């Protein structure tokens, strides 16, 4: 009995952590380059909507995924326009984008799918890996999930390689710490930051698409409901490192899944609200340096003026 609950708990931890993981890894790349995207939430919501839209129009979840990535990258592009070209306040423009995306996707959803939330789209099913999905515990937890789960380690590896094993990655990290020095060396801060924010857009798109294409095959208003902010918190709690961000996403996923399983586990002294707010508390403790040492990129959220 307890075994099944543990399996459900572990499986849903992974399922809930994956969208956060994609978005947080993407945001990590931007923050390493000195860009803070509060619009991460807007990117994810736009992708969730785009995924439903593409899938609804074509009947194919793959088309849905492409539209999802296009939508989130569009939001990322707009954020880039404000942060890099206009050198606007990154926080203010990010909040503005989030509100505009929330408004537009709500209008779009009503116009396309009507007011009843009952419509469904094909979406991606669960993909059981033959041979592995029958393993005890690990089978249902790791090998009977949606394709997004299997893509996550690859994306994480790709991000780590980009950041720490390539020349653009080196320039990117430097652009977030010492933009002036990078500029003097002849590299273009704008080009580096555009690269970073487009990577963020694509990754956040993968995360947002999970909601409408893999988790539930539909779109609801404000579907991501703060997942983007949670992913931002994961970057902070992960102390701006790839492994840290992965661990943070998993911890946040575990907290989210635990709140649904508490009654089944017979725990009633722990209020669910405490679990839901825990990620934010952890992030706050991390960013105040009360848990370990913090090291945000020094030029984070600062526009670059030559």
């Amino acid at each position, binding site marked *: 009995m307890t075994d099944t609950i543990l399996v459900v708990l572990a499986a849903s931890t992974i399922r809930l952590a994956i969208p956060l993981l994609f978005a947080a890894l993407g945001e990590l790349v931007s923050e390493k380059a000195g860009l803070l995207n509060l619009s991460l939430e807007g990117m994810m919501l736009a992708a969730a909507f785009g995924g439903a839209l593409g899938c609804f129009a074509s009947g194919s979840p793959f088309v849905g995924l492409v539209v999802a990535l296009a939508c989130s990258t569009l939001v990322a592009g707009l954020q880039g326009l*404000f942060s890099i070209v*206009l050198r606007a306040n990154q926080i203010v423009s990010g*909040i503005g984008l989030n*509100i505009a995306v929330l408004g537009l996707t709500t209008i779009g959803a009503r*116009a396309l799918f009507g007011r009843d939330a009952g419509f469904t789209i094909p979406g991606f099913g669960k993909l059981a890996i033959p041979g592995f999905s029958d393993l005890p515990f690990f089978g249902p937890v790791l090998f009977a999930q949606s394709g997004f789960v299997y893509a996550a380690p690859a994306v994480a590896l790709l991000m780590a390689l980009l950041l720490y094993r390539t020349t653009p990655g080196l320039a990117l990290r430097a652009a977030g710490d010492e933009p002036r020095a990078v500029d003097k060396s002849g590299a273009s801060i704008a080009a580096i930051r555009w690269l970073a924010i487009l990577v963020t857009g694509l990754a956040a798109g993968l995360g947002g698409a999970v909601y409408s294409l893999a988790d539930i095959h539909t779109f609801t208003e404000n579907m991501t409901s703060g997942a983007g902010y949670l992913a931002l918190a994961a970057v902070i709690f992960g102390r701006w490192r790839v492994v840290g961000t992965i661990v943070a996403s998993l911890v946040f996923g575990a907290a989210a899944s635990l709140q649904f399983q508490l009654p089944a586990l017979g725990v009633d002294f722990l209020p669910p*609200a405490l679990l839901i707010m825990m990620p934010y508390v952890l992030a706050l403790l991390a*960013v105040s340096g009360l848990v370990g040492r913090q090291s945000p990129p020094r030029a984070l959220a600062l526009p670059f003026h030559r």
Partner: protein
Amino acid sequence: MELARILRRASTSSAGAVLIALLAGLLLMAVLAPSLPNALAAFARGAFGTTYAVGASVNRAAVLALVGLGFILAFRANLTNIGGEGQLAMGGMVAAAVALKTDVAGLPFGLAIVLPALAGACAGGLWAGLAGWLRVRRGTNEVISTLLLSFIALWLVYWSVHSDALLRQPRTSATSLPESADIPNGAMIGMLVPPMHQGIVVVILLVALVHLTMTRTVWGMRLQAIGLNAASAKRAGLSIPRLTIGAMLASGALAGLAGAFMIQGEQYNLKAGFSSGYGIDGLVVGLLARGSAPTVLVFALLFGFLRSGGIGMEIGAGVPSAVVLTLQGLVILAVAGMEFLRLRQARSLP
């Protein structure tokens, strides 16, 4: 020549930004509404049509003005308090708790109303003050900390109304909602013209007070000094930690008071998500006001009526009120983008 200069200045002002966004909103409505005149009429009815509509809009404006005032006060010291939503929630929760859990309602001389409101202001102030303290002691960026504190506050409210040990109303039937009981009559703020409560009078006084504090007092000048150049302000002997925490305390207290007004003047009980959207709207009002307290009031009224109009439009003409939401997003983006034009203009001046 003169006209060109005026036009150029208008195009980079908040009014210009709002105008551009309003035009875009009108365009959006024209696309979405079956009939634009009908939609506009429904909007006007929702915003100004009845005493109820006007009162609800003014009440909303009072809340937005307080959050906006808090924002510009902290911003004077170059502190960006984006956690108005959380400070509002804390203020409302503590005001409700004091009204419900203490015997304050029986007190004379209006103390029954004033004490919960002050408690709410203190709660909001401490919530923002915590961010100020973290900045001073741990160097934590206040943008990140106020944002995170907001989420924590919202879930604290959720917790408080879901827990029987805290503020949840007694379960009389299976349908008892997870909300607090109604606050006692004694703690309710009186009405000017129902549903408009007396809070707006206090708000107008506070607008004047904040304006005078920022422009005419030593403390206001000191805030500006650390905001403009912290290093030289420090050299001049100003205590940056004290001023930073003080600015955040005052900023959060204004938002906390707004939360108390919402509970004691309009809603009368505490629900999860009662402050939803108000904090962000107040932040936008503060941003648009560009540091001027009287302008805060103007934009608060504009947004108060916009929201009510949007709801009226949804009911009366079937246009989603999300149009108003989109419009607000566009206003913020226009303001953020304008900064660029202003900077470039400043640089191109001889």
